[in-house]
């Protein structure tokens, strides 16, 4: 069985005057339909650039230098821009962090929904209108027909994000990429949106890439998790494996450094040092300078992803037991 989306050795570098930033370095993963893959990492870990590369939205000075993005067996990196436009929004849709940035303030919500539907589905305006109203209703916007004529500023943050979700799902995409969709929202609204996304994902059996830095959100939505650090994927596994038996020292320390609502921790374990500066990094494990378990071997070569138990991969010479 071929995966719905397969990323192989994807590398995106930014060529700056100061040097080369390897924002994404040989990242590989697969996504099946009806599955949520969570990508977790801190600022600068390369999680956003990874999905932007999949959508081919990386701009100069960034460049995809190697790798393959296979969508249903077809390499997206080899498509013409014209063909790619037919993929974006129709086959692979994306939800961004800030709903105010992804909606055009000068057009009504209805126009923006219908634009997508008319372009990709080839519906006439009447049919597109029906579909748009149906979508707004689906994402839980009250009085959808009235709201079709509203402008984005008339909506609250949570409602705007619902509109963005409606647009993303309006053409029945096979893959949905969500880049920190709830980060800008309040917790009670975040809970609403998470619930909605889970529900819709299950209903449409969409394959979803869910990107966040919030471990709590990942735990509640993802089936599998990929942990990124310094442009590389360092660990990948089923959600339970990642949360209950993390193998990479970074994952383990990250999980221990989060304050919890559900229990009192005496002292937070913190990861010493700073996140890596990404300029002209040597080809070793990016976590090396902060790692308490490093070996001499770590200074010489880069560990590869190794399967330590079924479905559970880790990039480390000295993984946790």
């Amino acid at each position: 069985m071929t995966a719905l989306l397969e990323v192989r050795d994807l590398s995106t570098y930014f060529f700056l005057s100061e040097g080369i930033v390897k924002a994404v370095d040989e990242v590989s993963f697969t996504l099946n339909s009806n599955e949520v893959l969570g990508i977790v990492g801190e600022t600068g870990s390369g999680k956003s650039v990874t999905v932007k590369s999949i959508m081919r939205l990386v701009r100069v000075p960034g460049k995809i230098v190697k790798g393959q993005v296979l969508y249903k067996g077809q390499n997206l990196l080899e498509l013409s821009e014209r063909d790619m436009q037919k993929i974006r929004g129709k086959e692979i849709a994306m939800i961004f962090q800030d709903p105010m940035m992804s909606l055009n303030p000068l057009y009504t919500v209805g126009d923006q929904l219908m634009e997508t539907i008319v372009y990709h589905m080839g519906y006439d305006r009447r049919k597109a209108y029906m579909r748009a109203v149906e979508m707004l209703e689906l994402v839980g916007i009250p009085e959808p027909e009235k709201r079709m004529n509203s402008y984005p500023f008339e909506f609250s943050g949570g409602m705007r994000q619902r509109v963005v979700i409606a647009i993303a799902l309006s053409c029945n995409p096979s893959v949905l990429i969500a880049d920190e969709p709830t980060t800008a929202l309040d917790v009670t609204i975040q809970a609403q949106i998470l619930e909605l996304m889970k529900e819709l994902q299950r209903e449409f059996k969409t394959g979803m890439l869910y990107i966040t830095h919030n471990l709590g959100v990942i735990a509640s939505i993802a089936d599998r998790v990929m942990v990124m650090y310094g442009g590389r994927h360092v660990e990948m596994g089923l959600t339970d494996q990642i949360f209950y038996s993390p193998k990479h020292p970074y994952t383990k320390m990250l999980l221990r450094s989060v304050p919890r609502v559900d229990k009192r921790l005496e002292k937070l374990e913190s990861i010493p040092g700073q996140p890596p500066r990404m300029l002209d990094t040597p080809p070793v494990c990016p976590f090396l300078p902060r790692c308490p378990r490093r070996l001499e071997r770590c200074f010489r070569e880069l560990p590869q992803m190794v399967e330590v138990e079924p479905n559970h991969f880790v990039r480390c010479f000295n993984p946790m037991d």
Partner: protein
Amino acid sequence: MGRVVLKVENLVKYFPVKAGVFKRTVGWIRAVDGVSFEVRERETFGLVGESGCGKTTVGMTILRLYEPTSGRIIVDDEDTTYFFFPKWKARRYISNTYVKRFLAEGEGIVEKLEGVDRRYAEIFFKEAKKSPRKFISILLDDLEEKRKNFRKEMQIIFQDPYSSLNPRLRVKSIVGEGIVVHKIAGGREALEKVKTILEDVGIPANYMYRFPHEFSGGQRQRIGIARALSLSPKVVIADEAVAALDVSIRSQIINLLEDLQREHKLTYIFISHDLAVVRHISDRIGVMYLGKMVELADKKELFSNPLHPYTVALMSAIPIPDPTRKKQRIILPGDVPSPINPPSGCRFHPRCPIAREVCSKEEPLLRDVGGGHLVACHFPGGLR
């Protein structure tokens, strides 16, 4: 339990909504609408709520970065409310708040009062001999001094480590400015002080000639903390001090704040939207919703026995980094209403799963339900 260092009484802050060519005031944003709480010496008081609940406004008003609309802010048995008013307004405030009451009640009132009221009453009846003018002039006498002292004792750490440091100053000036302004030390001695503080927060002293842009976010936040501590303040208000930081850096800063509190005997007001962080760092927690304090209790008590439905919903809405704990979430319908036109009665009633008729009519008062657990709800504990 420590002494009360800061007391906020019935704090109200409205912002005008202006419209039209003449910028007429057409309404008021009721950002903070009658909030009271006490902060005790060397504790961390957590203030938690969603955006727009007024938690930041409370912090800014305590520091008089906003002028309060009404209410009192008492620091160490001194009413600081009028400190930053213009003279005429300060006179009016003192007259309205104290003189009128003292004159009406007579000297017998002294015995019944406590804290700042008692102190002021004693000044009024003994030193000023019931002369309002004398009384006011005594209070306003050393106002400059009082203001300076207030600024020294109350400090703030801001959320954004990028915009809160002047990009054109070197670290030594950022941290040392207060030391020089308040004439605590000068020249070489000031420099030594800056060095010690920087080392306290984990920045190597030889970095002090650098500019903010040479530091990472976490390091910048450390510099912001050093600046706040440079004057050995009594109370430090941390307004979303770790919200902008990455997870691994956030835990470093939280631990640093805890260590510094122990070493420097600090009192914190920790303002955050993140209940998990607040739970970790605070001793007592106040939960705010739409300009009101809805629940206030000891941390342990609040988490084991939350009584206000909003607190319960807020707690259940937070995703926990543990996949098997996919608990039943209480999803609140709708959005937070506008503080320009807050709902009648209990401000939470339109979203409350257990609201009854009375909730839309009568505003519940914040009352003690035992053991210092305060809650403003007609049906406390009705939602679990």
